[in-house]
């Protein structure tokens, strides 16, 4: 492949949305209420829509006979480059919302910057996606405030989720070798540039939600290099089941 770095860079972006979309999709029919169930699965479908554009572009760059579906469905665990945050399970609604919030703030800042890329396809995808992500951010921010500043139980569960998921936030700003190569070509977003802005945004909402900002300085990373938590394998076995069991099936 001529442009391996660009290919890997695109997968890094797309895999975040694919895995988070799959996590949210698990809530289909299981949301805490009909309304939040539909809201979470709407967000899931938005993310899957974005993912298709990225994988179609990646398939074009790969230049062999792989399709968008092959790229999405037929890789092994170590070949997914999503951050660890998005693969964390839907432990309860607080975890779902906190995970979403921590990702949405990042996603919004990321897409804002991606619109300045030298790659016109990525710019087009970013322009289309940012409207959706702007709504996702609104949804998760509003819910975080409600849960944090809600009942004693909702506050306690939400604080627990914040404390547990905090360790995955710093990885959002880790850059791989493919990222760095693409940054120097003006294609990739240099995520380190909005790290301070990210934590400022997140901390402001946590404070408004009357939640404590974790002080822990211990952070996990690995997802961007394909080293995942124990949760991804189970997620992939769900995601890939149909394609693995009935190869090339369509409906």
């Amino acid at each position, binding site marked *: 492949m001529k442009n391996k770095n660009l290919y890997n860079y695109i997968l890094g972006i797309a895999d975040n949305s694919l895995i988070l979309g799959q996590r949210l999709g698990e809530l289909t029919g299981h949301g805490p209420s*009909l309304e939040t169930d539909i809201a979470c699965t709407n967000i899931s479908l938005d993310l899957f829509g974005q993912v298709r554009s990225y994988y179609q572009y990646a398939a074009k760059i790969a230049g062999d006979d792989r399709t968008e579906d092959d790229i999405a469905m037929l890789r092994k665990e170590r070949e997914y480059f999503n951050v660890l945050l998005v693969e964390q399970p839907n432990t309860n609604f607080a975890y779902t919302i906190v995970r979403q919030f921590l990702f949405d703030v990042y996603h919004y800042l990321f897409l804002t910057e991606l619109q300045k890329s030298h790659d016109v396809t990525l710019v087009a995808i970013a322009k289309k996606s940012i409207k959706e992500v702007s709504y996702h951010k609104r949804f998760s921010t509003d819910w975080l405030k409600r849960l944090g500043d809600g009942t004693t139980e909702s506050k306690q569960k939400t604080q627990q989720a914040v404390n547990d998921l905090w360790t995955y936030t710093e990885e959002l700003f880790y850059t791989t070798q493919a990222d760095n190569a693409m940054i120097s070509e003006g294609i990739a977003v240099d995520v380190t540039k909005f790290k301070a802005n990210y934590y400022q945004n997140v901390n402001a909402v946590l404070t408004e939600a009357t939640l404590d900002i974790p002080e822990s300085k211990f952070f996990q990373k690995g997802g961007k290099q394909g080293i995942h938590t124990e949760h991804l394998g189970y997620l992939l076995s769900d995601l890939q089941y149909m394609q693995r069991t009935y190869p090339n099936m369509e409906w």
Partner: protein
Amino acid sequence: MKKNWPLWEVFVRSKNGLEHRHCGSLHAADEDMALENARDVYTRRSEGVSIWVVESAHIKASNPENNGELFEPAQDKVYRHPTFYDLPDEVKHM
């Protein structure tokens, strides 16, 4: 039932120039959440350009028991319909 969120009625305008139409109801804790829920439940297939929500408790409804006195007297007064005019084809939404 006390612990449930209150019920809200949702009105959606399908495009500019048309009126808001009642399309259903949903549960939400307050008006902001009602609006977001309405967006997700009722406009995700691009059904609308504007949403109104109103708490169902604020609606005063007619009593079905009074249907006789309220509605039946109108049934035999066909002359109250503007059916005796020829409408030009260009006039829409009448």
